[in-house]
């Protein structure tokens, strides 16, 4: 299962970010931005409509956020989350959730 439920978006978006450097990502910024995501995602399960995003790969997370930012994925709630995120913020978020455990 991919985040989007649609794996074809993954590859091009990873290329766009150029395989983000985990060392460069700002984890404190990621944690702050992630607080918005927690509202909906923190109780997600494998079967919920809202996906469990904790511990997913940075590439997968980055691809999904960018696909929502570019409105290539349809959910308006997620488009609204992603619409104003810069590449740096996307990298910070992806890095944070890739290493975070569900509370």
């Amino acid at each position, binding site marked *: 299962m991919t985040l989007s439920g649609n794996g074809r978006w993954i590859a091009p978006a990873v290329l766009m970010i150029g395989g983000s450097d985990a060392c460069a990502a700002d*984890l*404190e910024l990621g944690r702050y931005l992630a*607080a*918005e995501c927690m509202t909906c995602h923190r109780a997600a399960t494998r079967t*919920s*409509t809202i996906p469990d995003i904790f511990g997913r790969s940075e590439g997968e997370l980055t691809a999904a956020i960018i696909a929502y930012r570019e409105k290539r994925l349809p959910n308006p709630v997620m488009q609204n989350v992603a619409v104003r995120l810069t590449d740096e913020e996307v990298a910070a978020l992806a890095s944070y959730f890739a290493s975070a455990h569900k509370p």
Partner: protein
Amino acid sequence: MTGLTRRHFTSLTGASLAALAAGSLCAPRAFGQAKPRLVVVGGGPGGGTIAHYVAKDSEGAIDVTLIEPQKNFTTCFFSNLYVGGFRSLESITHTYDKARAAGIKVVEDTAAALDRDKKEVVLAGGGRVPYDRLAVAPGIDLKWDSVPGYSEAASQAMPHAWKAGAQTKLLVERLHALNDGDLIVMIAPPNPYRCPPGPYERASMFAHVLKSKSHKSSKIVILDPKPAFSKQPLFMEGWEKHYPGMVEWQDPKTHGGIKHVDAKTNEVVTDLATYKAALVNVIPAQMAGKIARDAGLADQSGFCPIDPASMKSAMDPNVYVVGDACIPGDMPKSAFSANSQAKVAAVMIRGELSEARTFPARYSNTCWSLIAPNDDVKIGGRYEPGDGKIKQLDTFVSQKAEAADIRQQNYKESFDWYAGIVADIFG
């Protein structure tokens, strides 16, 4: 993340120098004091979220106390789904056990007054709780006299159910006692109020219950002091589709003005008609909770002005106000908004009390509304400080005549959101 980086070192040094220069009066953390203290008044979506985020992210560096009189908190959000039979009251009622386990000191008492000069909260039980920073999130109070004839006593006969719990239970009991052919009158509130789509979702839930009991001629009349309401085209379409002829919405031009209600006779009088109803649901005008108004944190609007970049009170630099009690600019008064504002406040409070790094304020909201089983619509937006308020940057809303699978997905999504946000608030 725990190492003392150059940035941390610089900011610590800067803060220490500032404290020395200004004297300990102005320093958030006085020398010799064990830990800086955050006190949160109100354990709902705004207050609960602040308490949890400051406790968690400060990793014990800040002493967090939450003052909330209720042992169990029933959320107003999703209480319409209890009205409609989609959730139990128990499933939307939460304790503070997890807050205690997270290291938050939960004081089960009413905050009777705020002594802002001494920086203390005065408890109804007699104690005083000192703070370095105070977060105020008391929610709303109802303006009983905004509907002539209505009162707190009258709410036993004509429930408002705009604070969840006993009132919601009463409303549901009355709803289930109705016979086919009965009339429900709802008086909707004027702006600004908690949960803009809430009255219309509630009318939908009334209609759903009556329809599922095979009522043929029962009717729901909504008397509205507003000329328009949130998600109006979507609700209108849904009512026509699922409950044809059952729900009638009247704007001020149609009813001519709501003159008064009589709780003894269950009558509602408008400029043009007198309704003898079997159930009257009066949702009065609203204002910030009493504690905030009494403490001088509200302006003439009855709500509390804030700095949109921090959620800090415009009246007191040691106080933050979040949730329904604040003036949220373009944001609606919703649990989602309160939770979003609380996260900004939590970061700013940590910045002041423990020199944590802060980030620019960013806010978001989504409100889901259920019209009928598996027919759920949503509206939302993104916000940032701008033009002296919390300003809307982007917005979205469900479309009319959407595919059934989208509406069903919204319904499932709203349940997942509920599970997430209550974990954010209550642990």
